């Protein structure tokens, strides 16, 4: 290439690089933070009762709370945990204050949905689980780690481009409860499971 032509082209490329850097930095600084709950649906029956920072220990954790008053006072609470350490039992203890023994808890593993825990406390039936961006749920640490490490090879390119994390440790902790006043425990479990399946089927992570 002609030397003076290359020098001119190079100067143009350097000016273009400076301009791209300025515009990208400007975009990065003014970019609004993404709503962490954008992928999760809000069902038409749900009535929002709380939408604020919920405190667990010293961490400010974002959460949403809904209820269906006419449906046996069904409560749905979703907390966004940026990095989940351990499983659901720690969250149940720190957030709900229930120190569950293994005999109080039924862990259900489902091939399509993942795993979730069912238990009864204070005349209410509870369903607790952790929804991962893979679109499946986990209850204990082993199940969650399996979701985090699932198909890592396919995550390399999106990770290099910054479109996703190589290992995604984020968890949407879902906690649902139903009053056991006019409903049998079996019916309550079916209601909670149905709500969980509806929620997962309408979640759009990709």
């Amino acid at each position: 290439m002609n030397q003076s032509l290359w020098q001119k082209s190079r100067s143009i490329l350097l000016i273009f690089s400076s301009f791209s850097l300025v515009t990208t930095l400007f975009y990065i600084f003014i970019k609004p933070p993404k709503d962490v709950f954008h992928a999760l649906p809000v069902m038409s029956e749900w009535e929002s009762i709380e939408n604020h920072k919920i405190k667990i220990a010293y961490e400010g954790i974002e959460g949403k709370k809904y209820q269906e008053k006419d449906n046996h006072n069904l409560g749905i609470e979703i907390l966004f945990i940026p990095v989940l350490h351990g499983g659901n039992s720690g969250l149940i203890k720190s957030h709900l204050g229930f120190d569950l023994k293994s005999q109080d808890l039924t862990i259900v593993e489902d091939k399509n949905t993942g795993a979730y825990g069912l238990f009864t406390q204070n005349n209410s039936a509870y369903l607790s689980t952790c929804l991962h961006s893979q679109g499946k749920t986990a209850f204990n640490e082993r199940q969650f780690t399996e979701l985090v490490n699932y198909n890592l090879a396919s995550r390399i390119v999106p990770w290099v481009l910054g479109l996703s994390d190589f290992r995604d440790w984020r968890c949407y902790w879902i906690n649902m409860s139903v009053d056991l006043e006019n409903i049998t425990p079996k019916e309550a479990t079916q209601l909670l499971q149905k709500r969980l399946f509806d929620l997962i089927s309408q979640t759009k992570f990709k």
Partner: protein
Amino acid sequence: MNNKIKHKFFEDQFLLLSIAVLLIVFNWHFINYNSTYLLFWCAALSIAWQKKDQLDLKSNLLATIIGLILIAWLLFRGAVSEFQSDVITRIYPLISIAGICLLATKPSKIFQYWREIIIVSMTGIPWEHIFALVPTVGKIAILDAKIARLMLWYVGFDVRRVGNLVMLPSGSIKIAGVCSSFDLLGLMWQSCIVICLYFAVAKNKKILLILCSTAIAFGVNGIRLCLMAVLVANKSDRAFHYWHGSAGAEIFTTAAILLLAAIYWLWIKKEENILDARPTSS
């Protein structure tokens, strides 16, 4: 006159300088640099600027394209990524310095920037990921506990130590992770390397500088640990969380770096005085 200024502004060295400054802002935003790492970048820029007239600033097509791809990758990743604590984000300074060097010169001449490359690369080493794999951190925490106990005992506190636990009668602290001197020690040694690359330091002075920086790291961190132990013993929770947090740690880090810089400055002053005092041989 205006044309002359305009022409000067669009000269390659000014454009490269502006790209370097913008990359510093980019890295500062994503890596949460402490003030010392910003100083490292400034030192690297200063070295390059001092020798700007001797530098070969003629890059070729291939090097320019690779440099542009690296910078474009950084910008794309920075704009779309929601994840800011992964290893790739941590090594942005390494990618930045590679990109700017390839824009500035041919790959065969990249060695002329070896000082700048070493200095900037030190800001892009993912220490927190490496520390997690190093078992020595635990041993350093015990040494820190011994130093803190000695300092507290010397000023008259009734203090005991078990392992990395420093106990006062009404409260105790456990030294672990980033509260140990490991972080500060690494930063001080890196600062020594920057001083040695920036100034011409004699070999014996280099050894002295490393010994001094090690003593400063343990001493300054020891004072911080003593302060935290006293605050815990006095049930001053808010003050404890401040000095335990990043803002409080930053003050001690800056104090340690200033102390090292002051010691080096005193050495230079002393040398100058000795040279001035010598009679001239002519």
